């Protein structure tokens, strides 16, 4: 057993870290204030290969592994949670299912521009009345000749505003519940797709969270992903991978807040000494660190299991749950360690606190993760 990163992973970690320190960290606050990630940064991340890290080289990906992917998101999220989830939603939620369930032709056509960042990807699953209960999707499709015609609406779609490539879930008959759902690859510039709204949010404000109306959207039959009726399975498989990305995002946010807190506790003096000399602060640091380390171990383990092609739905639920709860805990304590300064935007830990919260919600709320975990325990 070996818990060391390989040298290749260390080289990657260093390269990403340098990039993040020079290109992302200096503008993280501005990304939050502007509610936008500059296109220039998206382009640079694409050039770095961040948008196709674990996908095959044959289709323009970097051909690395899931652990590399987790490291990229972790490092990026240390500085900017918005940029972290842009990568995560794009890679595991759009590229992921196309890579796993797509045909060679589909991969050539859709995966290549996604991996190189020419198109930004997203997943369109959630609806106003279908959140945790993804089987309750009501967006409908019907076949007409060589096309599927889709009607309905989708909400909360990360990266939706880029109008790139989406993996869309719709049902042929909602009374069939899970069994009626199919997945489609959709060009979001197609007629009939309109943006209802880009949401204003508590955190990860740099990302798009888009609501779409779908009116008679015509999707070529060849864009069906997998088989008809396989949609729910595709969604669940996709979310398994996605949770590792969200765990890495949460981990990065927690680490970013922890680094700042550790430094600050050594700099800040009250009652004639650094606050790091107070046991109350020392215990906070110990608690924060222990949660970070456990979530890191579980996140890397889940990534390693996926790379080893082992069944990892338990671990992906565990790491997402642990890391997101570490993130909300650590960022909250980070503000406490900073005292009043922590509440002031300039110190950035308040942003991390706001960014952390969503990781307990999306890609399956933590309640849902507990359902997944306990179900497997009691199987």
């Amino acid at each position, binding site marked *: 057993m070996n818990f060391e990163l390989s040298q*290749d992973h260390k*080289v990657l970690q260093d390269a990403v870290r*340098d990039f993040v320190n020079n290109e992302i960290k200096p503008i993280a606050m501005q990304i939050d204030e502007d509610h936008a990630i500059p296109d220039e940064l998206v382009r640079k991340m694409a050039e*770095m*290969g961040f948008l196709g*890290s674990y996908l095959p080289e044959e289709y323009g990906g*970097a*051909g690395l592994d899931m652990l590399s992917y987790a490291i990229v998101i972790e490092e990026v999220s240390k500085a900017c949670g918005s940029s972290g989830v842009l990568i995560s939603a794009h890679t595991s939620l759009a590229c992921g299912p196309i890579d796993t369930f797509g045909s060679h032709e589909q991969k050539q056509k859709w995966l290549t521009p996604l991996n190189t960042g020419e198109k930004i990807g997203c997943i369109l699953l959630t609806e106003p009345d279908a959140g945790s209960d993804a089987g309750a999707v009501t967006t409908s499709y019907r076949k007409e000749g060589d096309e599927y015609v889709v009607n309905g609406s989708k909400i909360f779609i990360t990266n939706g505003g880029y109008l790139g490539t989406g993996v869309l879930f719709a049902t042929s008959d909602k009374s069939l519940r899970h069994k009626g759902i199919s997945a489609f690859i959709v060009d979001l510039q197609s007629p009939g797709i309109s943006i209802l709204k880009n949401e204003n949010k508590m955190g990860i404000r740099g990302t798009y969270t888009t609501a779409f109306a779908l009116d008679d959207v015509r999707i070529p039959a060849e864009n069906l992903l997998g088989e008809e009726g396989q949609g729910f399975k595709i969604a669940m498989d996709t979310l398994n991978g996605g949770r590792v990305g969200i765990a890495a995002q949460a981990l990065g946010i927690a680490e970013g807040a922890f680094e700042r807190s550790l430094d600050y506790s050594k700099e*800040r*003096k009250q009652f004639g000494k650094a606050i790091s000399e107070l046991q109350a602060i020392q215990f906070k640091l110990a608690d924060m660190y222990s949660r970070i380390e456990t979530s890191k171990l579980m996140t890397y383990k889940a990534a390693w299991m996926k790379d080893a092609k082992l069944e990892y739905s338990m671990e992906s639920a565990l790491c997402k749950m642990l890391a997101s709860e570490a993130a909300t805990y650590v960022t909250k304590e980070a503000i406490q360690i900073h005292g009043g300064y922590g509440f002031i935007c300039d110190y950035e830990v308040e942003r991390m606190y706001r960014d952390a919260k969503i990781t307990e919600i999306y890609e399956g709320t933590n309640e849902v993760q507990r359902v997944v975990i306990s179900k497997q325990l009691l199987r």
Partner: protein
Amino acid sequence: MKILVCIKQVPDMESRFKPAADGLWFDETDLAWRMNEYDEYAVEQAVQLKEQLGKEPELTVLSIGSDRVVEAIKKALAMGADRATHIQDAAAQQKDPWQIASIITAYAKDKDFDLIFTGMQSQDRGSAQVGVLVAELLGIASATTVVDFSFADGVVSVKRELEGGIKGLVSLQTPALVTCQLGLNVPRYPTLPNIMKAKKKEIEAIAVDSLLSEQAIAPTAQVYAPVRKGGGIVLEGDVGDMVQNLLGILKEKTAVVV
């Protein structure tokens, strides 16, 4: 054309240093390591030259050190070097520049490199000798502290950085060696696809004993923390208080802030 780049792995200079137990080097535990900054410019320049000349030149990167330095080697490969040589030496930090240069020379002497790039110095040892020593031992021309580089028709044209913003223009017939100064170019980040490609590149390992026959002639006798001159006032703590303190001091001690 054959190009060699010599690189070293050094600690991050923002680390806290303390002497090692034997007092002959600094303690290496808990340090973060990276490629010597000067060497990043060397690698970048070599890769740019390779790009200029098409795919033809073969670019080898060389590093001497423990297994840990393979990280720096892999970075250079991911930046665009073709192949690497790792001269395995767990005690490289105890070698003086003369020994290091002798090792590199022993490796390079029958390989007919047309151009060799090194950093002008390492950030930790700062001896600024190895590049020139290698060139002299190989009997080839060399120029140090290069801030501008171009190559055409077997002639290398460089600008050397002199004091006060003046530059010295020098041309060299190949084979030649240049030592690279900060600001020579903009070193690229290794991209993920290139990190992947680098995994497939060859890293030849050579035991240092097979290349080294020289004794140290300028060994380190002791490494220690500098004695603080003291005298200066150190302000720490609350920002507002420090600002008030500083303004008080400036009013008292200088005529410029009133």
